[in-house]
């Protein structure tokens, strides 16, 4: 890679993109090899003890298990690129049919959480920076520090105890999305999972926003703007805020990437029918094609969001552009 160095912003994006593709190829090999290391025979696992040698051989041929490892990998990867993720061993259905409604459910949950948490945490961080070392700053900093250290499932369960089962009884403890319905049909059920995700993400975004805003507020150009006699409102909204947002974009993208893994446990707590629930179920059932597909999918989301984080940081930070 080091020989090939196109310069400029586009060169940087291209290099990061290529690196992302390389990482994804290596991840696909890793996931594939990991499932190859499986001691049990998938054909036997499907057919169970009633299998005859003839039916086992036929199923192995159908699953391409009789071919070489490289051949199998190639078939799997080309299928993946064509949107064919194989057949679930447990449900005997194509993995795409099985997963696409769950994918929608998870995407809705993450989107709602993002829409709520991003403006909220930016506001908290900016306000804390303005009120630096005052009561609001101290309280919010300590509270966010404590919340950031709590495991998500602990946060989720505390919310369930407080709002659903024990203290108040105002919200449902379980957020199942029945097959055929959509998450927004029963939006009350989305409230607790959303708050959990917001609490999982907001401390990090608010903290970086506070740090970034403090740095900007102490900068020469903000001082300059104030000395020019601009109203404080204009100084904050036009000069300080946009410059403070640079590092925040990266942390937002990183936190959304994190949610790709984090929803696994949160969906399990609320019995929410998304990909998190699907992968937990597939792990328990040893349903390898589903685990493989979700591992690649989550890794892809993770890599893409990290890529966006890097690109966003470069684009909003003029200083870094010169160094490319």
């Amino acid at each position, binding site marked *: 890679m080091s020989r090939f160095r196109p310069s400029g912003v586009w060169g940087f994006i291209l290099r990061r993109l290529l690196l992302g593709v390389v990482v994804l190829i290596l991840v696909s090999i890793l996931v594939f090899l990991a499932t190859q290391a499986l001691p049990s025979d998938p054909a036997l696992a499907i057919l169970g003890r009633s299998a005859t040698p003839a039916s086992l051989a036929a199923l192995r041929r159908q699953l391409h298990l009789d071919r070489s490892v490289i051949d199998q990998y190639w078939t799997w990867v080309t299928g993946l690129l064509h949107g064919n993720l194989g057949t679930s061993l447990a449900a005997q259905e194509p993995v795409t049919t099985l997963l696409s409604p769950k994918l929608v459910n998870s995407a809705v949950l993450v989107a709602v959480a993002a829409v709520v948490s991003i403006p909220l945490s930016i506001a908290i961080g900016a306000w804390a920076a303005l009120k630096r070392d005052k009561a609001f700053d101290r309280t919010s900093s300590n509270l966010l520090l*404590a919340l950031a250290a709590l*495991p998500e499932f602990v946060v989720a369960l*505390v919310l369930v*105890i407080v709002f659903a089962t024990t203290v108040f009884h105002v919200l449902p403890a379980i957020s199942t999305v029945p097959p055929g319905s959509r998450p927004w049909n029963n939006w009350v059920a989305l409230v607790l999972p959303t708050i959990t995700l917001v609490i999982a993400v907001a401390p990090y975004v608010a903290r970086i926003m506070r740090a970034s805003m403090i740095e900007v507020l102490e900068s020469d150009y903000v001082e300059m703007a104030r000395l020019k006699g601009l109203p404080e409102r204009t100084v904050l909204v036009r000069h300080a805020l946009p410059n403070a947002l640079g590092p925040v974009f990266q942390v937002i993208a*990183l936190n959304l990437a994190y949610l790709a893994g984090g929803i*696994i*446990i949160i969906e*399990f707590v609320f019995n929410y029918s998304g990909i998190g629930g699907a992968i937990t179920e597939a792990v328990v059932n040893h349903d390898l094609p589903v685990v493989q597909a979700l*591992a690649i999918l989550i890794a892809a989301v993770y890599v893409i969001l990290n890529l966006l984080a890097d690109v966003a940081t470069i684009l909003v930070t003029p200083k870094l552009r010169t160094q490319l």
Partner: protein
Amino acid sequence: MSQVSSDWVADAEIAPPLPAVRGTSLLRRSLKLWRTRIGLALVGFIVLLAIVGPYVAPYGPNTPVGAPNSTPGGKAVLGTDYLGQDVLSRVLYGGRSILVLAVIATALGLVAGTAIGLVAAYSRNALDDTLMRGMDVFMALPQILLALVAVTIVGPHAWVVVAAIALTTAPRIARVARGAAQPIVERDFIAASEAMGVPRWRIVSGELLPNCLGPLMVEASLRLTYSITLIAALAYLGLTPNPNDANWGIMIKQNQFVLAVQPWGAVAPIIAIALLTMGTGLIGDGIARTAAGIDRARGEE
């Protein structure tokens, strides 16, 4: 909580590396901060609970002592769980495995990651690129996902969980170690050691490592918090060898569905886990603030 704060942010061009500080003095100085003291007290309390707990528990972890889901009072101070086992006793027994596994997994990841990161930074050649791209592959999978894949393939054994967490902790540590070591590799005292013919492994372990301890300790405390969370979460998902072990994660899962009747079966282990991770989080923040010089900066800015 989120494990990204240092994962990909650590690019040297975005966040300047923390100044090099000696490890022991860093720990001592961080104790001036109240948050470190509170954190230490919380962790100390939970560790004590886990060590002494099994000796003072009124009942065995799997002994039935009364009717299922009975509320606190009588023989069981915190009531009984869904199988009629004593909640207090199970809480007293349930901390050891989480603590032991989390410490082992983090330590393994810390040692491997530090070694890889320092060697990569010191080599300054193709080995550096190869090692760090290899680390990128493991970082492309969220920790819990790799742990789930490992458990699917090998089974829910304790060593699998430890290996999966160590394997995903190492690249994150390696990134920090490499970032901290890179500016130091360029310094004159390294060149001087090389000129004197000091063996390479002694330069890496004797010169490079002591100068990278500050950022590594910050990262290690963060990683320990995540390891505890992950191990508890995997137990909560039911991925443990023995589904009725006394383990805080398992207890929460088992008693989550009777919260409305007898909340203590889930609430007591939730409090224990929360105190533990808040403690490690506070200690980590204290060390990070000290390493970044925030403890002294307040009056002088």
